[in-house]
C-alpha cells in the first residue's frame, strides 16, 4: 500500500516521536509512505484568521505537489489532525466553489502549479491503519500485547470535525482508536471527553482558558484510572503533556498521566525498542506506566541526548542563506 506522506511542521521537531514511531511501524506493516517533496506548512489555525485566499493557496500548493508526484496513488496521508483538516477542507471547498477554485488556481499559476479539486484523496494516518491495514491484519503481527495497560484513547477535534464529505468515525463519539487499542491487547477505559478540545493554540492567547480545557481532559482520564492517554495529534500531545505541570500548579492537582501516540503503542505491541519509537521525548515520564507491561527504558538511554554542557536558554537563530 503506497501513499504520499505529508508530515507537517510539528512532526519535524516537536512531535518527532510521532514521525519516528510512524516510520518504525509503517514498513513492517506494509505501508509505504512517500514524503511529498518540498511541502510547505498548512497554515494551522493561524493563516485562515488573517488572510483567506493566501491561506487557501498555501494549502493548495501541497495538494498540487501531491497530485503531480508519481507513485502515491493520489492519496496523501497526514498524521497531524490540523494538517489533515486543512488539506481536506481546501480540496472540498475548491470543489464546492468554482469561484474559489479559479482564484486559487490563478494564484498557483504564479508558481507554475495547478490543482483540480478531487484529484487527491486526503487521509488521516489513523484511518489508514484501521481501514486499509485493518484490525485483523494488525492483530496477526502482535508479539507483545499491551495486556494490563489502561489506555484512554483521545481523539481531539479536527480529525473528526467538521464532517465535510464524510469522516471515517463518529464526529462526537468516535471508536476506531478504542478498537485499535483493544486489538493491541490494552484495556480501553471509558473516556467521555475523548472528542473534546485540548484548546489548540489557546495556551498562547489566554493561558487560563487553555489550562481549564486541558484540566478537564486530564481529570476525566484520571477518574477512569487511565495509565496513559493515547493521542493522534501533535497539538493534543503537546498541550496535555507539556502543560500538565502548569495545570497541576494552577489547579493544585497531581496528574502524572503520560501522553503517547497511537503509533508508539502499535510499535510496543510489535515488540519494538521504545527508543526507536521516540519514547522518552515526552515531558510526563511514560516509564512507570510502561513498566506495567514489562517495557523497561534505561534512564540513561532516555536522557542520552547530545549534551553541550551549556545550560543557557535556547535562542532562535536564522539559517545561513545560500
Amino acid at each position: 500500500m503506497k501513499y504520499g506522506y505529508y508530515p507537517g511542521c510539528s512532526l519535524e521537531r516537536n512531535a518527532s516521536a510521532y514521525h519516528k514511531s510512524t516510520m518504525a511501524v509503517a514498513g513492517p506493516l506494509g505501508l509505504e509512505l512517500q514524503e511529498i517533496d518540498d511541502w510547505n506548512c498548512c497554515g494551522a489555525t493561524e493563516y485562515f484568521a488573517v488572510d483567506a485566499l493566501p491561506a487557501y493557496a498555501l494549502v493548495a500548493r501541497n495538494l498540487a505537489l501531491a497530485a503531480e508526484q508519481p507513485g502515491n496513488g493520489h492519496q496523501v496521508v497526514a498524521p497531524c489532525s490540523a494538517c489533515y483538516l486543512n488539506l481536506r477542507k481546501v480540496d472540498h471547498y475548491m470543489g464546492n466553489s468554482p469561484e474559489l477554485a479559479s482564484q486559487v488556481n490563478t494564484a498557483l499559476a504564479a508558481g507554475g502549479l495547478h490543482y483540480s479539486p478531487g484529484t487527491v484523496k486526503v487521509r488521516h494516518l489513523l484511518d489508514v491503519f484501521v481501514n486499509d491495514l485493518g484490525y485483523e491484519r494488525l492483530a496477526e503481527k502482535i508479539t507483545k500485547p499491551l495486556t494490563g495497560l489502561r489506555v484512554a484513547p483521545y481523539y481531539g477535534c479536527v480529525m473528526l470535525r467538521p464532517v465535510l464529505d464524510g469522516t471515517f468515525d463518529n464526529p462526537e463519539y468516535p471508536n476506531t482508536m478504542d478498537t485499535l487499542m483493544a486489538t493491541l491487547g490494552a484495556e480501553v477505559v471509558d473516556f467521555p471527553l475523548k472528542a473534546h478540545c485540548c484548546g489548540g493554540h489557546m495556551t498562547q492567547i489566554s493561558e487560563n482558558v487553555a489550562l481549564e480545557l486541558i484540566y478537564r481532559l486530564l481529570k476525566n482520564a484520571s477518574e477512569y484510572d487511565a495509565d496513559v492517554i493515547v493521542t493522534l495529534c501533535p497539538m493534543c500531545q503537546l498541550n496535555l503533556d507539556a502543560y500538565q505541570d502548569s495545570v497541576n500548579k494552577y489547579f493544585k492537582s497531581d496528574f502524572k498521566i503520560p501522553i503517547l501516540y497511537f503509533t508508539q503503542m502499535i510499535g510496543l505491541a510489535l515488540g519494538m525498542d521504545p527508543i526507536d519509537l521516540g519514547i522518552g521525548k515526552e515531558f510526563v515520564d511514560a516509564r512507570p506506566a510502561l513498566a506495567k507491561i514489562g517495557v523497561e527504558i534505561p534512564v540513561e538511554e532516555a536522557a542520552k541526548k547530545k549534551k553541550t554542557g551549556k545550560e543557557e536558554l535556547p535562542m532562535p537563530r536564522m539559517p545561513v542563506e545560500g
Partner: protein
Amino acid sequence: MVVTATQERTPTFFEEVVSATPGGKTNLELCLQCGTCGGSCPSGQDMEHTPRALFAMITAGMKQQVLSSNTPWYCVSCYYCTVRCPQEIHITDLMYTLKRMAIKHGYYRQSTAADAPDFSQTFIGYVENYGRSFELGLATRYHLSHHPLDVVKMAPMGLGMWRKGRMDLTPKKIKSIQQLRAILEKARELGGEA
C-alpha cells in the same frame, strides 16, 4: 423616483460577512437562535458573546460591537458547534471571517483578546519567509512583544523542549520558497475583501 431593490447600495454588515466567507454557502441566514452553538462551545463561558448572540448582532448590523468582541478569538476551532448546528451553519468558518474583518478594521484592539491577531500574524510571517512554521521564533518574538514577563515563566518549558530534542533553533526553509512567495503574493492581490 422609486428606489428598487436592484439598485446599487452599500452592502449590509450581514452581507459583508457572508461574502467574505469563501467555499460555498454559510447558511447564516438560517440561524434559528436555538443556542446549540454556545451550549456546545468549550470556551463559551469566557466569551463576551456566545456565537448565537453574535449572529443576532450581525443580523442587527452591530458591526463595531461584533468586531471588537473577544468571541472569534476565543473560538478554538473545535467545530463542535458546526457539527451540531441544526441549520448546518458554517460557524467556525464564520469565526475566521470575523477575525479577518476585525484585523482589517482594527477593532480587535478594543477586545480582551487584543494580542491574538499578532500571534497569528507572527506565525504566518515565518511561514511566508521559510515555508514552514518555527515554534521557537514564534514563541519568543510574540511573547517578547506582548508578555515579556511570560518569557521568564515559559523558559523552563523552552529549555525542556530543547533538551528533549523537540525544538529547532533555526527555522527550516523549503527549496522553492520563491515559488511559494509568488503564489502567496498573487493570492493577496486577488484576495480583496476575503
